[in-house]
């Protein structure tokens, strides 16, 4: 960000430290990857079975949701099913975390999620852009989803005064926010993306959304006969609950206090070493503390730090990796931002409100030792492997 390097939480690291941290993190990743096996496969299949069971049960209960307890039970089960599907299943499977099983039914290239946005568009904007350019201003379009001002370095506009409201609306309709964001209209406006691409993406979105909407708001309610209206409202509630929850989890993963943003140029990004890249991920993410059930409901994105370090590591392994990452942070005197959901969420809300007004600066600067040639190419330079295999579209040059 600013050029005041003394404030950087990484300023004390020598280039050797940085590379050593990179090696240590690589070693953790390799170790866990080599250990994957039947138990992991059984885990994801169990979650899938549970999710489908909950969805069927929830929808079943909503068929008779004129009866209020059935409405409550059905809506709750459907909400949980939708959250599980988007988080622990969709998000992680589309990251390629389970591709090692070589099961085409649980594979990043075939998974389509229960969400209005199509998995293809999401895989590009999320897997490629967000995970590669994590918290790089102007590059990581996730930063506030181009709608909000989340960082003091983002220029202020009077419209930002409304952003507490904008943010609430975004939370409620988060899946639509994601879908429109995947269209990258801002990129087309800036001339970085042909409008014809946008048009074909709009078509794809319209097709997917039609199917989603008719399933949730027409077909299932229609099957419910006299329970049409409560079943309809049950679906509205479940989708909204899922939206608010995912919005909260994602914002808590990147915007609480102490999380760094980076003002990099393309060259600086290219000069980034493996260690630099890891560190940017490390200090650009925040964890949420909680129970095992909470972790599963967040799709283990409560281990946002570990997820950003190892995006394609199966999510059920983040819990065992976290203490080791934390230990490295302690040894090298690095921040490891973590807190309870209410605490992190409060900080996010405060930030959204604060940034709706001009100013609010004073975040620490970017950490890399610049200009050194990379000892190992950063992940997005290493071809398909690390660019998370969902990036079907070629990255913008």
């Amino acid at each position, binding site marked *: 960000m600013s050029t005041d390097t003394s404030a950087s939480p990484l300023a004390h690291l020598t280039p050797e430290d940085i590379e050593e941290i990179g090696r240590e993190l690589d070693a953790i990743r390799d170790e866990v990857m080599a250990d994957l096996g039947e138990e992991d496969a059984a885990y994801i299949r169990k979650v899938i079975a549970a999710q489908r069971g909950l969805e069927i049960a929830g929808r079943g209960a909503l068929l008779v949701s004129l009866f209020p307890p059935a409405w409550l039970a059905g809506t709750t089960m459907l909400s949980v099913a939708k959250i599980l599907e988007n988080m622990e299943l969709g998000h992680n499977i589309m990251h390629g975390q389970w591709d090692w099983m*070589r099961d085409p*039914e649980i594979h990043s290239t075939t998974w389509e999620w229960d969400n209005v946005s199509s998995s293809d568009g999401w895989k590009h904007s999320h897997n490629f852009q967000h995970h590669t350019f994590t918290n790089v201003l102007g590059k990581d379009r996730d930063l506030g989803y181009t709608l909000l001002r989340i960082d003091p370095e983002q220029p202020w506009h009077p419209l930002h005064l409304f952003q507490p409201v904008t943010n609430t609306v975004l939370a409620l309709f988060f899946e639509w926010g994601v879908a429109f964001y995947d269209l990258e209209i801002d990129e087309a406006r800036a001339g970085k993306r042909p409008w014809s691409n946008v048009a074909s993406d709009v078509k794809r979105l319209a097709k997917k959304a039609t*199917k989603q909407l008719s399933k949730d708001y027409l077909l299932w309610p229609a099957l419910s006969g006299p329970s049409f209206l409560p079943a309809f409202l049950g679906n509205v509630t479940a989708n909204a609950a899922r939206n608010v929850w995912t919005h909260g989890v994602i914002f808590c993963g990147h915007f609480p206090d102490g999380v760094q943003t980076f003002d990099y140029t393309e060259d600086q990004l290219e000069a980034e070493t493996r260690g630099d890249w890891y560190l940017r991920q490390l200090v650009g993410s925040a964890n949420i503390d909680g129970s095992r059930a909470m972790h599963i409901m967040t799709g283990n994105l409560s281990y946002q730090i570990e997820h950003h370090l190892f995006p394609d590591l199966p999510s059920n392994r983040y819990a065992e990796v976290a203490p080791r990452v934390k230990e490295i942070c302690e040894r090298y005197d690095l921040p490891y931002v973590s807190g309870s959901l209410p605490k992190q969420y409060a900080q996010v809300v405060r930030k959204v409100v604060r940034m709706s007004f001009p100013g609010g600066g004073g975040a620490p600067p970017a950490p890399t030792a610049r200009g050194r040639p990379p000892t190992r190419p950063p992940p997005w330079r290493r071809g398909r492997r690390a660019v998370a295999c969902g990036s079907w579209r070629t990255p913008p040059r």
Partner: protein
Amino acid sequence: MHVLDVAASLTTPLLPDDYLTYLNPLWSRREPRGRVDAVMPETADSATIWLTPGIGWPAHTPGQYVRVGVDVDGVRHWRTYSLTSVPGRKDKRIAITVKAIPDGVVSNHLVRHARRGMIVRLAPPAGEFVLPDAITEPMLFVTAGSGVTPVLGMLRALAAAGPLPDIAHVHLAPSRDEVIAGKDLRHLEQRHPAYRLHEHHDDRRGLFDVVALDALVPDWRERPTWACGPAPLLDALSDRFDAEGVADHLNIERFRPVVAADGAAGAGGLVRFTASGREVEADGATPCSPSARTPASSCPAAAVWASVTPVSAPCAAAASAICAPASRSTATPMTRRTSARASPPQPAPSTSPSSAKGPAR
């Protein structure tokens, strides 16, 4: 089908399949499965595995193989096995006979750990190593070890239809005890006078020399021949048939492909899809076609799900039936330790596997 279409709009983005398979795994149409019904030991290291295939599995022709997808330690592996049962059984079951090879991932798993109830993936039967529709001439079968399996399927089907025609069968095995389905073969010989079985056991008579054919089956040159076994045997046979000018009599099924040996392992190379003629440059850990999203079941080269690199020796055991490497091809076997990524393939269908009708002339 109509019902499923309507149901699909209720289950979107999933398919009814994704729910129905919980009720019965054999109902899947997207990823056809098979259920292990029985595992019958054959020899110390081989077993016949009886499977009930899922709905819609087409009947096979004797001599054909089936690709089987097996999860070992959480990872799906596809391997190819010849069908040893008579097609069109009332109980719909099919059988494969598997020999566990040293360090073989799938063969050991199947022989030693397959249990009743285990679910595997099944691709439809395929292969050109089959008998002609009408059998008019005396025939010769030359098999060795587990290479007997496709021929076993043929013999059983012929025997089920009536008396066996004139067949000379030379079968090689390390010892009498190690003859897969030895009892069955001997039994067939007793019941069918036109079927002559010549067993050769290495432990008593040393390695087989193809010259011995002259003594065992003096009229071998006149007999259309089906041969399956290790590469050295098949190569020697090809040479002999070539030399005698009867190469077009020889039908060969290779369990292992001929893999180009030049280039360092893992260096990758050029992959050619024989049917389409399309060529893909691939490094040692890259799927043949990263952009493809063909589900394995509809992809004739679904072997890539078994091993992303097409031309590695272990992968090719399955893949050989489908894709023939261009000469430059070498690649390391894909293991999940070296790469965690697999992508489905997009090769053009190739229906003529390496079970070529003898060396192409």
